[in-house]
């Protein structure tokens, strides 16, 4: 398990302090603490592609940025990825919650739960689970972004954040 305060501290250390989010119940603690943190700018977005657009605008200004969303939102950002971030070479650190993991979830999450990783593979978006070794996982994501200059996804399973 990863303490949300530890996750924020590491993101701050790595200068990922501009964030945009669309809520998910699995992100509640993380978003609640991020919004209160004066060193973090966390902008709630009305839709996932808007969150990605905001984070991308921050990158244009020279900032490092991340987004937080549920994996259902991946469906909403495929066009922004394929016709914007991936071709414009705009890296954004993306945290996606894994609803529908192992088909143990509400029916609306089951298909995306199964298809999220294959979809990311198809789009050639690097992705990895966020684990207890969250520093390694974030460092890996930053390394990928530095090399490829495209968005990279860290996947959050239920129970990983506390």
């Amino acid at each position, binding site marked *: 398990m990863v303490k949300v305060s530890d996750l924020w501290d590491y993101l701050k250390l790595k200068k990922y302090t501009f964030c945009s989010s669309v809520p998910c119940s699995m992100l509640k603690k993380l978003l609640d603490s991020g919004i209160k943190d004066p060193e973090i700018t966390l902008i709630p977005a009305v*839709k996932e592609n808007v969150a990605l*657009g905001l984070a991308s605008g921050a990158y244009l200004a020279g900032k490092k940025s991340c987004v937080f969303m549920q994996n259902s939102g991946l469906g909403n950002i495929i066009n922004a990825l394929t016709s914007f971030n991936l071709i*414009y070479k705009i890296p954004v650190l993306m945290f996606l919650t894994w609803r529908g993991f192992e088909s143990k979830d509400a029916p609306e999450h089951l298909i995306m739960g199964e298809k999220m990783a294959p979809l990311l593979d198809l789009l050639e978006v690097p992705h990895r689970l966020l684990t207890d070794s969250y520093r390694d996982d974030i460092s890996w994501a930053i390394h990928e972004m530095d090399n490829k200059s495209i968005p990279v996804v860290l996947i959050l399973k239920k129970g990983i954040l506390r």
Partner: protein
Amino acid sequence: MNCIEAMEKVILSLKEEDLALFNLGLNSRMAYSLKDRKGNFYMLGSMGLVSSVGLGLALNCDKKVVIFDGDGSLLMDMGIMSMIGVLKCKNLIHIVFDNEAYCSTGNQTTYCESIDLASAAEVYWYKTVIKVKSIQEYDDFLSSLHSLEGPAFCLIKTDTCNVKDFPRVALSPAEITERFRANMVSQGKP
């Protein structure tokens, strides 16, 4: 208003240090062929996304950010207007050239013949809302452009036009990003 003229004058009145983001199709093509500059960012796809990228940029820099948007594009993701207005982004000017049509794909009609995006901007708490329907109103808008209190919403009602009159942007997407970011760095603190 003639669509081309309306866009031309705003593009030519941009100041050296202004940052400008252009919606795909006509906005990008016009700006690129008329006055390409390092502070220009052209969207080639992702219709509807220009305002989100513009807001993200404006929230992270002190310079004036001018978004050149279209009515069809804005209708795609109108929720962004609530964010621009409520976040009170003072350095943001959101200009919408409203020709009531999807100009880039052959002028199919949008819903803007019947709805007023400027009224929406008021509901969404933009600090300044301007609606331009005549040459006189346009001249007033143009002379006030650099003193508008943001977030400002400027709706310019225009005729339709043919996007094919203007060449495509000849920069690659990655070049557009690289040049824009390099310009931010060369201008010092973002």
